């Protein structure tokens, strides 16, 4: 697809339409494009339409790679504070919005939902519709930009996006603390997230032995050392069981820590990636549930509000290949959580798919079902003939 009018024609002419961008989330895009539907590749619909650094806003076509945009912003000392993930793997702006993805920096100023201020989309009738606007504050009309965050191409096809951006802090520092156990870590987490220290990112993960907590601050270099010391004190005060504490101030090394997170480089080769929103209080139950399953690499982000879970595609049980995302689906249902598979094989392609499985038990969505009457009614208005995958 090279133009919006091509997309409009395709939507008007097809019975069923799926979208893909950079292909960095194959569990969403590949699966969609394998079903009996016309698949529209939006990776050619790219480029910046308008970037005014003094306005702290830009407008770009949906297929624009995130990496190209962040490089352009960096030239002016600006950035997308929600740290869009998977840029290194070719993620596009449109795909990032449709999948509703924010990275670790989301902790400080908000997620992708808080920075997307305007959109254009092609609806199920093939019309290009505008939502939101180009100014950072706008309360006029329904907030279509927010509706399309996480919409997975099922309400319309995003063609153009307007974001607000922020000035990038001039320097960062990260405190990394190691703990023997999760409960020690959660004690420190509570202390640090309730403190008055302005935290840019708060992540943690199990290591070979024990757990590590990473806390990032940013701002003027002149006072960063002093602030990092204050942060160390808060982290240390939260628990008596801390094994070690280190401070990363070398800018390249420090940035490397977080680049690994954004690009999901920590993910083991051959495992899928599942995104699971939760709250810190749910984590002990999640850990207990996971301990009974196969070993899963994982990382908790956004102060314990998000779990990135590496999950093997297939497991052999008693010599029979099992579609393991099915196990995870059941596990999340038991926990009352929702997840979405981004990388790996989505459940429909599983080795032993139950024919009688309900719709909501298929595809990249795992755990507690999502549908509700509000969403159904919205979808019926924007896509009356059901050309996009139904919600």
């Amino acid at each position: 697809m090279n133009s919006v009018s091509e997309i409009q024609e395709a939507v008007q002419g097809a019975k069923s339409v799926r979208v893909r961008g950079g292909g960095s989330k194959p569990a969403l895009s590949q699966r969609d494009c394998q079903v009996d539907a016309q698949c529209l590749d939006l990776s050619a619909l790219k480029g910046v339409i308008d970037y005014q650094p003094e306005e702290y806003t830009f407008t770009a076509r949906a297929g624009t790679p995130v990496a190209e945009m962040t490089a352009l912003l960096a030239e002016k000392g600006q950035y997308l504070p929600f740290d869009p993930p998977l840029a290194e793997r070719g993620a596009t702006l449109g795909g990032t919005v449709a999948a509703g993805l924010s990275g670790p920096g989301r902790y400080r100023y908000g997620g992708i939902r808080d920075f997307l201020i305007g959109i254009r989309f092609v609806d199920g009738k093939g019309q290009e519709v505008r939502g939101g606007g180009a100014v950072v504050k706008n309360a006029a009309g329904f907030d279509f930009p927010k509706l399309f965050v996480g919409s997975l191409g099922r309400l319309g096809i995003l063609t153009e996006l307007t974001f607000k951006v922020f000035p990038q802090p001039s320097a960062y520092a990260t405190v990394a603390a190691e703990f023997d156990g999760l409960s020690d870590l959660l004690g420190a987490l509570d202390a640090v997230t309730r403190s008055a220290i302005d935290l840019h990112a708060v992540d943690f993960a199990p290591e070979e032995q024990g757990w590590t907590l990473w806390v990032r601050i940013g701002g003027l270099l002149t006072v960063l050392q002093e602030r990092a010391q204050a942060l160390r004190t808060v982290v240390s005060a939260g628990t008596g069981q801390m094994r070690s504490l280190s401070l990363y101030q070398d800018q390249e090394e420090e940035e490397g820590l977080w680049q690994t997170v954004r690009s999901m480089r920590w993910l083991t080769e051959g495992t899928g990636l599942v995104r699971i929103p939760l709250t810190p209080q749910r984590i002990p139950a999640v850990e207990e549930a996971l301990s009974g399953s196969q070993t899963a690499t994982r990382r908790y982000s956004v102060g314990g509000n998000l779990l990135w879970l590496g999950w093997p595609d297939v497991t052999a049980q008693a010599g029979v290949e099992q579609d393991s995302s099915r196990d995870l689906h059941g596990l999340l249902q038991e926990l009352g959580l929702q997840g979405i598979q981004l990388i790996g094989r989505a459940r429909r392609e599983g080795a032993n798919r139950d024919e009688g499985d309900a719709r909501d038990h298929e595809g990249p969505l795992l755990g507690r079902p999502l549908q509700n009457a509000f969403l159904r009614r919205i979808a019926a208005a924007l896509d009356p003939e059901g050309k996009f995958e139904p919600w």
Partner: protein
Amino acid sequence: MNVHPLIETLSRLYDADRLLTRPAQLMAYESDALTAFQQRAAAVVIPQNREEVIETIRLCHGYNVPFVARGSGTSLSGGSLPIADGIVIALNRLDRILRLDAAERIAVVEPGVINLKVSEAAKPYGLYYAPDPSSQSICTIGGNVAFNSGGAHCLKYGMTSNHVLGMTVALPDGEVVELGGESLEGIGPDLPGFFVGSEGLFGVALEITLRLLPIPQTYRTVLAAYDSLHAAGDAVTAVVASGLLPGAIEIMDALAIKAAEVGAKAGYPTAPALLIVELEGEESAVEAEFSQLMQLIEETAPVEVRMAQTADERARIWKGRKAAFSAVGRLAPDYIVQDGVVPRSRLGDALAEIDRLSASYGIDVANVFHAGDGNLHPLILFDGREEGALERAEELAGEVLELCVELGGSITGEHGVGMEKRAFLPKMYGPLEMQAMEDVRRSVDSKSLANRGKMLPAGEAESLTHVGPHPLEKAGVIFRE
């Protein structure tokens, strides 16, 4: 539309003191803070719990009677104006903070909870609720949600929608749905985000989960006076370009300064323009940023600079700013508050044009605005006793909105479309957009019962009459922003 069978049924649900039908009782609900509009409802119900709200909505749907949910009635766009022959659902008694979880930094509240009460309840835990509309001591969270309310401090942390994580909602036919949850992150379309700011058209929020933030360690506030609005505007550009991220950047012009002096005795310097910049955060960071800010401000050649040295001085600066609107009432018998947004770099152009319009209409306009995000609040002064004065003030207000659209901005930054700006929404959006909004609305509310006639053009036009400022505003209890 015969509303009597519905009222008859409601009388079985509500005691007489919670089902108001007498004209004297209904009068108090005829207007909100946009007093130019008034309309009498057929009845006002005062539910005490969510079940009563849901049942009332179901009944309205069944009897085909439109309804308006209302909190404290502080809407500046006529958002809570009653519908003729419709029902008003007054939510003020659903005012419980159901849960305040300091560890998760959330508060779960009913819609009638007053904005400021959330921060007061969170204070012992070192937390607060960030959105701070000027009416925060009286406005309710339900109304904030419906209109995506802002405030002086949205520059850094955003408006209401940036602070709502989840909610339980009664759709316009009474079906109850859960949107979002307690996590900062979610899966699927951002439905809480879509509901916030829908101006009551998608139904009534029954329970709202709010995000709380740690109270900033410290604030540093500076007030700088300039010999022209243009110079103050240039200072804003310099501050924004520096990469500093203040919590608030505000500008007031000479007329607004005069009003604030008369109204709140803020002790402001007399000058053509005042700039207020506030930094917030950790002590050491704010100190360092503040010296950078002061250097920047010195370079913009202010005629006078004052720094708030104490919490009292800070409070006084803000009191003057927040009271400026109501205080304008002392300069003229009546005024209209406009709320438009322009790209930040076009602020100078916008102000020059407003000046020109003011001169050509021969109508005084005071300017108070959230300069950091380009949100203008021109106050158009008039005397309602003069024949045609209101209409001419409205006409000028309309030209300001068209100017905002022309400059690539918005017709509302935080007050919403409501009744007031229905005619202007189609100037900002094309027919396709208006149709898409109408389609979604019809699909969510097949009978267009929920807050019918607001935001989207529909039904009969309401009467525009002049009634002067809101009594609470005259008393200085509520402020327009």
